[in-house]
């Protein structure tokens, strides 16, 4: 047992660090710092993707032949870790980290040749169409119809919680092509051009005031069968395959950065009795608790990656890491909001870099901001971070998975 990086791993870490120092501009770092959710400002995120693409690092997890990197699981973890520690803006996960793996695994040569290079350059930007108003955790109950009509499927229905629908030019959807048999059967994985006639987007204003999420309506939208991924009626297989790529994230380093930021911020804020907030014994212990939990999460991430590196199945570790990481993240947003003090109640999204448009808000002409930008970020982040325990399989669903897989219940 050993907690240290090997000489090769340390050399790789230094290589990544040097690259980040040279290419992460102050503007890009600023976009990382002022994120109000897990989604960075769209333009900053795409600019960073272009820089990474030039280095060949935009999609490291892809097979080398499609533009990925020949890295070990530990190298992938180190890369994610260093990006988080350096404050790089997050790339949108839907294209590179999600649908691309499905295209690589199930796509035809034509689909691979057309989509993969364009996803890398950002020319094709995907959003995800899984959830529906009546199908959340029970995803397989989805009902958006795709009716066979010659060379096309004609799609009618609606998808919801579609992040970046307005920015995306493609959407990957699970649609219903058959109503007979089990509900998991009769689902098809479909790639849809967002410019096709019959698609309408209704932005959803979140509690942060941002339009990050959307509902997308499909009214007799004609999609060529050539855009089916895998086989018709076999989309559930593709969706399950995609779940395998949720493993191996580096959440602990990001949480360390956030906790350090909160510590810095709180050090400049008054606590009770005139001492800095970080000297208030209660706040101090809560901050220590968050950092301890982050240290522990990091060990659990290390253990998972080390198991993957040895070719072992880490079991249901992904569900555990998801629960622990998102709950910890939510706790950090609570501390940040507390540190923000009375200014945490002031709504000033113009001082932040939100993940989507903010409608019905007029910034003061003077650009006035009460306090520091982080005090404007804190409440928005607090509200947006509620999503962590809901998305990608709610934490209750993750507990159901663990009950079965880890405890045999």
């Amino acid at each position, binding site marked *: 047992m050993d907690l240290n990086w090997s000489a090769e791993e340390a050399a790789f870490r230094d290589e990544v660090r040097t690259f980040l120092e040279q290419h992460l501009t102050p503007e890009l770092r600023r976009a990382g710092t002022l994120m109000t959710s897990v989604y960075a400002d769209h333009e900053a995120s795409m600019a960073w993707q272009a820089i990474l693409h030039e280095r060949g690092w935009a999609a490291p997890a892809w097979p080398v032949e499609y533009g990925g990197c020949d890295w070990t699981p530990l190298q992938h973890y180190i890369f994610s870790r260093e990006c988080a520690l350096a404050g790089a803006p997050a790339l949108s996960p839907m294209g590179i980290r999600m649908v691309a793996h499905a295209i690589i695994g199930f796509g035809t040569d034509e689909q691979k040749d057309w989509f993969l290079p364009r996803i890398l350059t950002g020319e094709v930007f995907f959003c995800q169409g899984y959830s529906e108003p009546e199908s959340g955790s029970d995803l397989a109950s989805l009902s958006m119809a795709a009716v066979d009509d010659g060379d096309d499927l004609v799609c009618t229905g609606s998808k919801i919680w579609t992040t970046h629908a307005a920015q995306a030019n493609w959407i990957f959807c699970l649609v219903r092509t058959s109503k007979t048999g089990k509900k998991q059967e009769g689902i098809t994985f479909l790639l849809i051009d967002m410019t096709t006639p019959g698609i309408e987007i209704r932005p959803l204003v979140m509690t942060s005031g941002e339009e990050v999420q959307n509902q997308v309506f499909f009214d007799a939208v004609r999609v060529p069968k050539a855009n089916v991924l895998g086989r018709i009626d076999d989309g559930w297989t593709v969706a399950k395959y995609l779940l395998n790529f949720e493993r191996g994230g580096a959440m602990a380093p990001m949480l360390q950065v956030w906790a350090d930021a909160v510590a*810095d911020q709180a050090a400049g804020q008054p606590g009770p009795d005139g001492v800095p907030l970080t000297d208030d014994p209660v706040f101090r212990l809560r*901050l220590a*608790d968050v950092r301890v939990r982050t240290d522990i999460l990091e060990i659990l991430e290390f*253990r998972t990656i080390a198991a993957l590196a040895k070719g072992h199945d880490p079991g249901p570790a992904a569900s555990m890491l998801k629960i622990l990481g998102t709950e910890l993240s939510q706790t950090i947003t609570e501390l940040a909001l507390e540190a923000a003090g009375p200014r945490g109640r002031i709504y000033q999204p113009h001082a932040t870099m939100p993940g989507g448009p903010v409608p019905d808000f007029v910034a003061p002409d003077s650009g006035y901001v009460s306090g520091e930008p982080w005090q404007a970020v804190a409440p928005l982040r607090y509200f947006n971070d509620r999503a962590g325990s809901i998305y990608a399989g709610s934490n209750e669903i993750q*507990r159901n998975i*663990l009950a079965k897989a880890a405890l045999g*219940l």
Partner: protein
Amino acid sequence: MDFSFTDEQELLRTTVGKFLADRYGLESSRAAAKTGAGWQPNIWRAFAEDLGILGATLPESAGGLGGGSIELMIITEALGHALVIEPFVETVVLAGGLLQRAGGPRAEELLARIAAGDAVVAVAAEEPASAGTWHDVTTTARRDGDDWVLDGAKIAVSSAPLASQLLVTARTSGAQRDTTGISLFLLDLDQTSVAMEPVRTIDDRRAADVTFDGLRLPADALLGAEGRAWPALEATVDEATAAIVSEAVGCLRRVLADTVDYTKQRQQFGQPISSFQVLAHRMVDMHLEVQQAVAAQYLAVMKLDAEPAERARAVSAAKATVARAARFVGQSAVQTHGAMGMTEELALGHYFKRLTAIEYQFGSRDRHLARYAGLTATR
């Protein structure tokens, strides 16, 4: 980055686990604790001679095997899983660590006796006013001619009634909470009569309150340099803390497994209670705590040889984590078992008591969080 055992470590794990599964009984050990001698000397002898675990982590010069912190982790986790009451941590880790760091012929001779299973050594450090702070020492040792004279009181000294030797912290200079001026003394209990009130602990171990009223000791009772025992004490207590963190992991795994089994067997409303989601999710939360405790164990153990501040921070992170796990998993297991969980008829009740003791031993969760905060740089 590697989380696997060597073949030798894996062999140690299976050997100790098998021995304890075959030969260590919950009933016989509780009987020894309550109505017997407070321990099982034959088991201790087997630890030394059949298993070799009493010397496994002691230096080869003392007849040990020179194992490191990973071996310590493997042994203590197995001891926790079997709820062993014999004073391994007190004798091998705490006293053994202090003796190695003090050095000198008396220390080396005693280390060899520990490895051979011939000595049980208790460490008398905590005092009525010290509140778990080991450098808060009011017991004094003053020179009188060639002798040392000890005055003061120690409380809840684990395994003292079983011990053949006692290691005592005493102040030879400085103020009550100074880290300098603390010295370490070794007493042979078969040669020196010490006023001792033996007690039983909540987790079925033996301890004693010890009073020194002008106790006269020979010059060679002082171990190591006068007034400079603190760095050794701090490092050794961190090792002992890592050892009980690991012991707790053994207890926690057993308690969770027992709880899962129980809910699969227990029928209410015509079905096993494991089928109720509210209980399943609580058991998943117990699982999450156990996994975090395992990570805490790894963190503490693998940082034991790091620089003092880094070591202390890791050990405190681990102890704070395990204290929370011990409370949540212990209480949840009792709740899930219903009133049976409150009895001594099931193993669970005994494990819950040990976990509760561990929660506070070598400092509570709050104490370790505060220590961690103090060691975390604020920029």
